[in-house]
C-alpha cells in the first residue's frame, strides 16, 4: 500500500466522517416506530425480555443464519487445520490447574444462570455459550484440556446439534403457516428448547474456534 | 448460287447430317485417345470433312437444326454464304488431310497433330454452320485454341514464340468480339443471326466486332501473329491456317455486321483504308522476306485486304451489298483454294527442291492469285471490281487506280516466290505428297468457275486489258529484278511485333523484380 493510496484513504475517511456528522446532526425523526409494535406483540412472543423476543421470535430468522455464520467460521478453520497436523501437548501449570479446577463448576453454574435469565433480562444462549467457551479455554491454558485435532463424530454432533434443533423447529413450525411461527402457547418452551441446544453447541463452537487453531502447526 | 430442288428434304436426315458434320471429326479426335483405336482413327482422320462436304453439297437450302435449350438458343443451318464457306472449308480440310497423311508418315507425335487438327477442323466447320452468336463463338473459340496446338507442333523455339504471340492476340481478339457481340445482341434484342442482320447496333458495337474478328482476318496492326504462326506450323496446318481459318473471321463479319441494312460510313471508310494498306503493306514486306512460307503468309495479308475492301464497301454503302456479297464469297473461295495449293506446293518444293514441274505446279495458283484472265482470281477480282466501282465519289476512282497496282504487286510477290522456290536445294523424294497437291491445284483453278456470279462472256476488252496489263508489266519488272538483283532491306518476319514484344518483356521483368523486393522486404 504505497504512500499515495494511504494518504487518499485517510483523506476520504476524514471527509466522509465530517459529512456524516453533519448529516446526522440534522437527521429528522424516524417515520416508523418499532418499539411500540414490539411491546404490543411481546405477550405472544413467549418471553418477557423484549431483546430476546426480537432476537428469537420477531427476527428469529437472523439468529438462525447468524449461527450458521459461526459454524461456517469453524468449518473454514478446520479446512485450514489440515488433517495431518500433530496435536501439541501442553506443559502442566500446577498453580493455574488448581485454580481452574476450582473455577470450573462456578463457570458452568454461571452459564446455566445466564441461559435461564435470557427470557427475563439480558442474557441468553450466546452469552452462556461464551462463558462455557471461556471455561474450556481456561482449562486448555492450564494444561488440563489438550488442543482439539480433527473433530470426531461425537464432537461434530455436539457442534452441529444446536443449529439442527433450531432448524428442525423452524421447519416444523411451517405447519403454523410460516417459518418460525411459534404458536403463542408453546412459544416460550420452544424458545427455551432452542436456547438450550444453542448454549451447548455455541459453547463447543466458540471453544473450537480457539482449540482447533492453537495446536503448533506442523 | 446453284439450285436447291434436288436436295433431300427429310428433317431427320438433315438433322443427322448436320450433327454428323461436326460430330464426326470430334468423334475421331476422341478415338485417337485410347491406344487400341489410335491406328484406325489416324487412318480415317483425313476423311473427317466428308460429312461436312455432304452437307454443303447435298443438303437443301433451308436445312436447320433448332436446339433452343443449348447455350443461348442454338440454331445450326445452311444459308447461301454458309454453304459456300462450308464447301471450300471442307474441301481445303480434305486436301490438307490427305496431304498430311503423307507428310506425317514417319512423324513421331502424329496423333497429337491429328487431335489438334481434328479439333480445329470441327471448330472451323461449326463456324460455317452456326446461325447464332453463342454457337458461332463456341466453335470460333474451339478453332482458335485448338489451332495453337498446330502452331506449336514442331516444339521449336520460334514455334513457342509464335504460339505465345498468336495466343495473346487471339485472346484479345476473342474478348473484344464477345464484348462487341454483347452490345450487338442487346441492340438486336436476340442472339440469332437473323435478328442481328436487321438490327442497328451502336457504332462502338460494330467497331468492337470488326476489331475482334479483324485479328483473325489480319487487318494491319492486328496481323502481327500471322507471318509468325503460319510458317512455323507444319505445311498442311499452315495451308489450312492461311486458307480457311482466316475466312472464319471474314464469315464472322458477314454474319454479325448489319451489312446491307444499316450504313456506318466512318467504319466503312476505315475498313476500306485498312484494306488498301493491307494490300500494299503485305506485298512490300513480303518482297523483303527470304523464307517461302513467310512470303505466302504476307501474300495472305495482302489478299485479305481485298476482302476487307468488299466488307468496307458494304458498310459504307449498304445498297451495294447484294452485289458485293457474292463477289466477296467468290474471292474467299478463290483465295482459299489458291493459297492452300501454294502452301502445299511450297511443302513439296521444300522437300523436292526447285524442279521445273514443281515451279509449273506453283505457277498455276500464283497466276490465279495475280488475277491473270481466265483464272479464278480474275473472275473474283472482276466481280469485286464491279461492286467497288459503284462506290461514292472519292473511293471509286481511288480503287480504280489501286486495284491494278495491287495486281501488279501480287505478280511481283508471286514471281519473288517462284524465284525463291527455284533456288531451293533438293533434300528428299516426296512422291507421296505430289498427287494430292497436284489434284488439289487442278480442282482449285476449276472450282471458281462453278461459282461465277455472272458469266464474263462477252468480254469487254477494256476490262481484259485492265486485268492483263498489270500482270504483264509485273512479269517484265520481275524479269528485270531477276537480272540485276538489288539488295532488299531484311525485315524480320512479324515486323512490328518485335518492338512490342521487347516492351512487354521489359515490363514483366520489372514487375517480377518489384515482387522479389516486396517479398524480401516483408
Amino acid at each position, binding site marked *: 500500500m504505497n504512500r499515495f493510496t494511504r494518504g487518499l484513504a485517510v483523506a476520504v475517511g476524514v471527509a466522509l466522517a465530517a459529512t456524516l456528522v453533519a448529516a446526522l446532526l440534522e437527521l429528522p425523526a424516524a417515520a416508523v416506530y418499532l418499539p411500540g409494535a414490539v411491546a404490543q406483540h411481546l405477550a405472544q412472543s413467549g418471553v418477557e425480555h423484549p431483546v430476546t423476543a426480537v432476537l428469537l421470535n420477531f427476527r428469529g*430468522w437472523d439468529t438462525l443464519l447468524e449461527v450458521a455464520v459461526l459454524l461456517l467460521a469453524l*468449518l473454514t478453520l478446520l479446512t*485450514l487445520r489440515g488433517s495431518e497436523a500433530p496435536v501439541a501437548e501442553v506443559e502442566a501449570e500446577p498453580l493455574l490447574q488448581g485454580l481452574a479446577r476450582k473455577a470450573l463448576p462456578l463457570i458452568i453454574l454461571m452459564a446455566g444462570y445466564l441461559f435461564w435469565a435470557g427470557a427475563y433480562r439480558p442474557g441468553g444462549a450466546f452469552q452462556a455459550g461464551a462463558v462455557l467457551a471461556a471455561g474450556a479455554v481456561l482449562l486448555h491454558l492450564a494444561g488440563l484440556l489438550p488442543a482439539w485435532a480433527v473433530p470426531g463424530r461425537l464432537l461434530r454432533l455436539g457442534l452441529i446439534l444446536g443449529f*439442527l434443533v433450531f432448524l428442525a423447529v423452524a*421447519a416444523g413450525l411451517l405447519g403454523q403457516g410460516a417459518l418460525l411461527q411459534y404458536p403463542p402457547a408453546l412459544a416460550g418452551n420452544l424458545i427455551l428448547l432452542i436456547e438450550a441446544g444453542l448454549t451447548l453447541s455455541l459453547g463447543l463452537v466458540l471453544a473450537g474456534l480457539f482449540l482447533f487453531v492453537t495446536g503448533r502447526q506442523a | 448460287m446453284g439450285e436447291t430442288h434436288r436436295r433431300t428434304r427429310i428433317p431427320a436426315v438433315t438433322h443427322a447430317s448436320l450433327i454428323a458434320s461436326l460430330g464426326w471429326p470430334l468423334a475421331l479426335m476422341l478415338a485417337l485417345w485410347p491406344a487400341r483405336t489410335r491406328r484406325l482413327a489416324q487412318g480415317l482422320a483425313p476423311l473427317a470433312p466428308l460429312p461436312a462436304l455432304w452437307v454443303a453439297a447435298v443438303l437443301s437450302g433451308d436445312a436447320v437444326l433448332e436446339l433452343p435449350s443449348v447455350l443461348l438458343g442454338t440454331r445450326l443451318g445452311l444459308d447461301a454464304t454458309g454453304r459456300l464457306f462450308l464447301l471450300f472449308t471442307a474441301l481445303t480440310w480434305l486436301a490438307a488431310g490427305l496431304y498430311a497423311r503423307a507428310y506425317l508418315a514417319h512423324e513421331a507425335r502424329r496423333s497429337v497433330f491429328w487431335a489438334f487438327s481434328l479439333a480445329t477442323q470441327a471448330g472451323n466447320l461449326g463456324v460455317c454452320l452456326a446461325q447464332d452468336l453463342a454457337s458461332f463463338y463456341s466453335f470460333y473459340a474451339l478453332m482458335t485454341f485448338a489451332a495453337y496446338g498446330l502452331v506449336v507442333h514442331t516444339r521449336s523455339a520460334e514455334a513457342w514464340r509464335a504460339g505465345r504471340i498468336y495466343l495473346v492476340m487471339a485472346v484479345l481478339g476473342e474478348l473484344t468480339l464477345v464484348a462487341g457481340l454483347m452490345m450487338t445482341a442487346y441492340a438486336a434484342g436476340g442472339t440469332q443471326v437473323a435478328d442481328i442482320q436487321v438490327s442497328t447496333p451502336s457504332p462502338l458495337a460494330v467497331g468492337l466486332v470488326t476489331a475482334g474478328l479483324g485479328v483473325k482476318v489480319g487487318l494491319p496492326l492486328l496481323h502481327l501473329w500471322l507471318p509468325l504462326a503460319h510458317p512455323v506450323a507444319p505445311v498442311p496446318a499452315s495451308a489450312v491456317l492461311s486458307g480457311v481459318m482466316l475466312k472464319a473471321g471474314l464469315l464472322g463479319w458477314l454474319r454479325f455486321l448489319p451489312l446491307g441494312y444499316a450504313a456506318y460510313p466512318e467504319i466503312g471508310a476505315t475498313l476500306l483504308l485498312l484494306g488498301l494498306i493491307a494490300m500494299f503493306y503485305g506485298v512490300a514486306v513480303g518482297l523483303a522476306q527470304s523464307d517461302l512460307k513467310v512470303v505466302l503468309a504476307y501474300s495472305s495479308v495482302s489478299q485479305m485486304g481485298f476482302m476487307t475492301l468488299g466488307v468496307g464497301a458494304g458498310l459504307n454503302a449498304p445498297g451495294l451489298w447484294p452485289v458485293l456479297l457474292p463477289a466477296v464469297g467468290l474471292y474467299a473461295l478463290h483465295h482459299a483454294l489458291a493459297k492452300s495449293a501454294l502452301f502445299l506446293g511450297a511443302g513439296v518444293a521444300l522437300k523436292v527442291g526447285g524442279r521445273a514441274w514443281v515451279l509449273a505446279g506453283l505457277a498455276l495458283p500464283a497466276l490465279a492469285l495475280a488475277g491473270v484472265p481466265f483464272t479464278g482470281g480474275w473472275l473474283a477480282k472482276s466481280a469485286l471490281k464491279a461492286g467497288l466501282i459503284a462506290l461514292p465519289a472519292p473511293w471509286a476512282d481511288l480503287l480504280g487506280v489501286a486495284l491494278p497496282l495491287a495486281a501488279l504487286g501480287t505478280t511481283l510477290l508471286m514471281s519473288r516466290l517462284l524465284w525463291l522456290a527455284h533456288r531451293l536445294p533438293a533434300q528428299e523424294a516426296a512422291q507421296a505428297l505430289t498427287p494430292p497437291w497436284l489434284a488439289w491445284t487442278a480442282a482449285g483453278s476449276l472450282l471458281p468457275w462453278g461459282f461465277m456470279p455472272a458469266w464474263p462472256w462477252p468480254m469487254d476488252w477494256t476490262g481484259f486489258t485492265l486485268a492483263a496489263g498489270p500482270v504483264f508489266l509485273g512479269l517484265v519488272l520481275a524479269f528485270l529484278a531477276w537480272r540485276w538483283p538489288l539488295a532488299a532491306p531484311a525485315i524480320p518476319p512479324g515486323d512490328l511485333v518485335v518492338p512490342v514484344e521487347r516492351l512487354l518483356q521489359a515490363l514483366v521483368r520489372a514487375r517480377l523484380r518489384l515482387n522479389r523486393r516486396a517479398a524480401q522486404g516483408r
Partner: protein
Amino acid sequence: MTEAWLEPAAWLIILPLAWASVAFLAGPGRGARLAILALVAQLGLALELAADLTQRGARMHAVGGWGAPLGIDLMADGLSAVMLLLTQAVALPIAVYAQAYFAETHHRHAATWFWPLAGFLLAAMNALFLSADLFNLYVTLELLGLAAVGLVAVGGGTAQITAALRYLLVSLLASGGYLLGVALLYGAYGTVSMTTLAPLAVGQTPLAVWIAAGLMLVGLLAKTALLPFHFWLPPAHGGAPAPVSALLSALVVKASFYLVLRLALGPFAMMTGTAAGLIGVLGASAILWGAWQALRAQRLKQLVAWSTVAQLGYLFLIFPLLAADGLALQAGALQVVAHGLAKAALFAAAGVLMRATGRDTVEGLAGVAGRVPLTLFAFGLAGVSIMGLPPSAGFLAKWLLIDAALKQGQWGWIVVIIVGSLLAAGYIFRVLRQAFLLAPEDSHFQPVPRRLEWVAFVLAAASVLLGLRGAELVALLGVGS
C-alpha cells in the same frame, strides 16, 4: 395457507442448510451423494417456484408470521426466481463435477470440508435472493462471504490463503460499509424492511440516506469486484480448485450484483439514477481492462478469472440504460444467466484441461484437442456464449443491450459492447488455437474421468441452447417487478 407445508421458498433455504449440516456430520463420501440428491430436489423446487410465480405473481412469506416492519419477509418475484433457477442449475452439475474431481487421492483433505461449505454457500445465496429485509441481507451477505472465503482457502496453498485473506478483508470492509448504511437507514426511517422503505425513500431524502445509499452501493460493488475493487478476484477465483472457482465466478459475484439491482429498482432508485453514468463507465472500463488482462494472462485459470472481471462489466452497463421498457433489465438477467452457465463451463473445462496436461499455463495446452475433444468442444461452446456470438444466450443479452442503447440513443455503450466481444473472442480463441496445435513429442496426457468432460459440455450446451428459448426467461422476469 393450507399448503404452507409446500412453500418452495422456505424449503429452498432450509434444505441446503440441512444437507450442509448432515454432510458436516456424515463426511465427504455420503455427504456428496446427499448433496447431489438434495440439489436435484432444490432444482425441482426452484422450477416449481418459477411456475407458481408465472401463474400467481410475486408472493410474500412473512417469517414468524409478524409481517413487514417488525418481522422479516421472504419475497419471491421474477428477478429472484431467475436467480434461484440459475443458482440451482449451476450448483447441481458442479456438485456432480466436484464429486468426481475430489475423488482423487491428493484432494482427500479438501473434500472433507467442501460439501458443508458449499451447502452453506448455496443456502446463503438462496436466502439472499428471497430476503426482503436489509439487515437480514447483511447477515446473508456475511454468510455468503465467509463461505466463499472458506471455499477459496479449501485449496490450502500459500497463494490460496493469501487470496482468501485479501478477499476476506475486502469483503469485511464492504460489509462494514453496508452495515453502517443499514444503521443510518434505520436511524432515518426506523425500519429495515425494503417493502416499507421503498415509499419512504422517495422525494426529498435527508443527506444521511444519500450517504447510506452510497456506502451500501460501494460495499456491494466491491463484493461484485467492479473495476476499482476487482484486484482480489483473479487470485481468489484463479487459485481455487475448479469446482470452487466455478461456483464463485458463476454465482457468488452475481449475488451482490443482484442486491445492487434490487436496491436500484427498489429504495435507492433515485440514488442509482444519478450515479448510473459513473457505474456505466466503470463497467465499460472493466470490460476493456479485464479483457486486456485476460489476453495477457499466462495461466489458464487466471485468463478465465479475468474474463469474469470483463463480463461483469457488461452487467453494470445496464444501469445507465434502465428504462420503462425493461429491455436493459432483460439484458441484465440474460447476461447473468448466460455468463453464469458459460463461466461455470469454462472453469470446469479449464479444470479438465489442467488435469489432462498436468500444467496450468495456456502454452502447456498444445495438442490437447486430440486427447479431450469433448472438453475443447465445451470450452468452445462456452466461449461462444462469452463472446456473445449467436445462437447463445450471451448473444441475446448483447442483442437486447445494444437494442436498449440504440433506443435511448446512447451510442457509446455499443462501441464498448462490440469491442468487448471482439476482445473476448481474442482470449477465447487464444486458448482454442493453442489446443488445436500439434502436440509436442514430449507431452504426455493423464486420463481424465469422462464425467468431468460431460459436466462441462452440459453447462456449455445449456448456455448456448438457452439462446434459442429466451422467451420464458423474459416472461418470468416480468413477474412482480
